[in-house]
C-alpha cells in the first residue's frame, strides 16, 4: 500500500497559485475521493503526485521517497487523465495496450482484454476513431489493468454514458477488493461515485478544506424528513444546506454534529434522520464562507 505525504505543497502557473501550501497524508490501501470545484487544484495536485510536474515548493513523498524523477516510485504510480496519454492517436488500441504493458510492471493483459470486452472496445480500432466516451473508457482500462500500487483517476469518466460510468465504478471497487492498493478518484459526479470512497479529501483554491473518512463526514449533518412544521421547528437555529418540500412533507439537510438529545427529539417528533448527502456537504464546504 503506498502512503502519500504532502507537505506545504506549492505550485504556480505564472501569477496564478494553483496549490497553496497544501498538506495532508494518505495512509494508503483505501479508495480516496478527491473533491474540489473547477480550478480548485485537483488536477494540478494529481499531476505533482504522479511527477508529471515539479512542485515550486514543499514535499511529496510516496512511501517515504520523493517522487519527482525517482523511477523506483514513478513506475508504481498510474495517473489516468481525461486525455489518454499515448504516443500517437493513429495507433490501434491493441498497440496502445502493448505500449502501456511495456512500461507497467504489474500489467494484467488478461484483465485488460476482459475490460475491452466489458467496455465494448474493438482492439483493432484506432484511438482517433473512438468517441470521447470510448477514449475515456480506454483510459479507465489502462489505469485498472496497470494495477499500479498508487492509481489515480482524474475525471476519467468524462464523456462516458451512465452504464459505462457505473461499470467503471464497479470495476474500481471489485478490482480493488481483489488487488488492494491505493486508489484516488478525482470527480465532480460526487453522488454517483461516493459509495466507493472510504475517505474524502476536499480542496479549494489550492488549500485543504478537509480530509476525513466518509462516515465521519456524512455524520457532520443530517437530512431530516417529516411534516413541514415539525421539520422547520427541528431545523430552527441549525445551518440549513438544502431544503425540499412536497405537499406537507418537507426534507431539510442541516449541517452540524447531531447530539443524542437531538436524535431523540427527532424520533419523538416522528422525523426521519438520514446521513447528509456528500454532495450537499461538498457544496456547502466549498461555497463562499462555507469552509469557515
Amino acid at each position, binding site marked *: 500500500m503506498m502512503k502519500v505525504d504532502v507537505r506545504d505543497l506549492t505550485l504556480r502557473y505564472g501569477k496564478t497559485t494553483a496549490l497553496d501550501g497544501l498538506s495532508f497524508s494518505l495512509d494508503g490501501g483505501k479508495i480516496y475521493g478527491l473533491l474540489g470545484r473547477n480550478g480548485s487544484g485537483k488536477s494540478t495536485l494529481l499531476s505533482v503526485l504522479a511527477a508529471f510536474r515539479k512542485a515550486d515548493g514543499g514535499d511529496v513523498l510516496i512511501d517515504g521517497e520523493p517522487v519527482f524523477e525517482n523511477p*523506483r516510485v514513478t513506475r508504481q504510480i498510474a495517473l489516468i487523465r481525461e486525455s489518454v496519454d499515448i504516443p500517437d492517436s493513429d495507433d490501434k488500441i491493441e498497440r496502445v495496450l502493448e505500449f502501456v504493458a511495456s512500461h507497467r510492471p504489474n500489467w494484467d493483459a488478461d484483465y485488460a482484454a476482459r475490460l475491452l470486452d466489458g467496455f465494448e472496445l474493438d482492439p483493432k480500432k484506432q484511438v482517433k476513431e473512438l468517441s470521447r466516451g470510448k477514449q475515456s473508457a480506454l483510459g479507465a482500462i489502462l489505469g485498472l489493468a496497470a494495477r499500479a500500487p498508487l492509481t489515480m483517476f482524474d475525471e476519467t469518466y468524462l464523456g462516458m454514458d451512465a452504464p459505462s460510468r457505473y461499470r467503471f465504478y464497479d470495476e474500481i471497487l471489485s478490482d480493488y477488493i481483489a488487488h488492494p492498493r491505493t486508489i484516488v478518484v478525482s470527480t465532480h459526479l460526487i453522488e454517483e461515485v461516493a459509495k466507493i470512497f472510504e475517505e474524502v479529501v476536499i480542496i479549494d483554491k489550492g488549500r485543504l478544506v478537509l480530509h476525513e473518512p466518509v462516515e465521519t463526514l456524512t455524520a457532520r449533518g443530517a437530512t431530516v424528513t417529516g411534516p413541514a412544521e415539525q421539520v422547520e421547528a427541528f431545523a430552527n437555529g441549525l445551518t440549513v444546506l438544502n431544503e425540499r418540500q412536497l405537499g406537507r412533507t418537507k426534507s431539510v439537510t442541516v449541517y452540524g454534529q447531531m447530539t443524542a438529545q437531538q436524535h431523540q427529539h427527532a424520533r419523538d417528533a416522528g422525523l426521519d434522520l438520514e446521513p447528509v448527502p456528500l454532495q450537499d456537504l461538498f457544496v456547502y464546504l466549498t461555497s463562499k464562507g462555507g469552509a469557515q
Partner: protein
Amino acid sequence: MIARTDVAKERRLPPLRNWTFPRRMVEDHLGLAALLWLALLVIVLGVAVGNHIWDSVGGSYWDDAVSSIPQWFVAFMAGYVAYSFLPAQIAHGQTRREFAQEALVYLVVFSAGLAALATIGFGIEAAVFAVMDWPHGIDDGHLFTSSGQVHLIVAEYLIRFLVWSAAGFTVGAGFYRSEEAGGAALAVAWIPVAITEFAIGTLYGSPLVLFRFVWDPPALHPVLIVAIGLLSFAALVWGGWKIIHDIPIKTKSE
C-alpha cells in the same frame, strides 16, 4: 521536511529500472526510412535511366538525393519522438532521465541505420553504373571522393544524421515545452548544424548554404570534421536534456 523512511523504501519499492532499448521508435522509424530509401533509390535509378535515354549520365544522382533530403526527415522524426513519446512515456511511469537515455540510443541507432542506408545506396548505384558502363563520380563537398570509400561515406552521413536528429529532438522538445522554448531552440539549434555542414563542406542541403557564396572554408582533415560533428551532437544533446530535465507533462488543453 518529512523524515525519509528508508526501511519502507527497502521493503516495498523495487530496484531502480534501467532504460530499455527503444524498440518501438527504432523499428517504426527505421522501417519507414527503409521504405522511403527504396522509393528514393528507384527514383534515382529511374532518373539515371531517363538521362541515359534522353541525355547522358554523369556523376552520382544518389549523391544529390541523399545529401539534400534525408537530414530533414531525420530531424522531423527525432522532433516527433520528443513531442509525442516523451509525454506518453513519462505519463506511464518513466522518468525524464530514463526517457533521455532511450532517446539518445534512438538518435544514435536511427542515425547509424540511415547512414548505412545512404552508404548502401551509393554501393548499389555504383554497381548499376558499372554494369551499364556509366561514369560514377562524386561531387565536391564530401569527406569522400568515390563510392569505394565506405568508411568515409559512413562517417559523413553518421555525423550529419546525428547532428540533424539531435537538432530535431531539441526543437521538438522545445515546442512541447512551450512555443517560446521551441522558438528559442530553433534559433539556437541551427548553429551546430551549420558548423557541422560547413566542416563537412556541404554544398547544398545546409541551412547556411547561401553563405558559401560569401565564405568557403578550407578543407579540414576527416578526423577533425568527425570531432566537430561529435561536439555539435553533444552540444545539441545537452541542450535537449536541459529542455526536458524538468519538463511538465501537459494536458490536451494546455
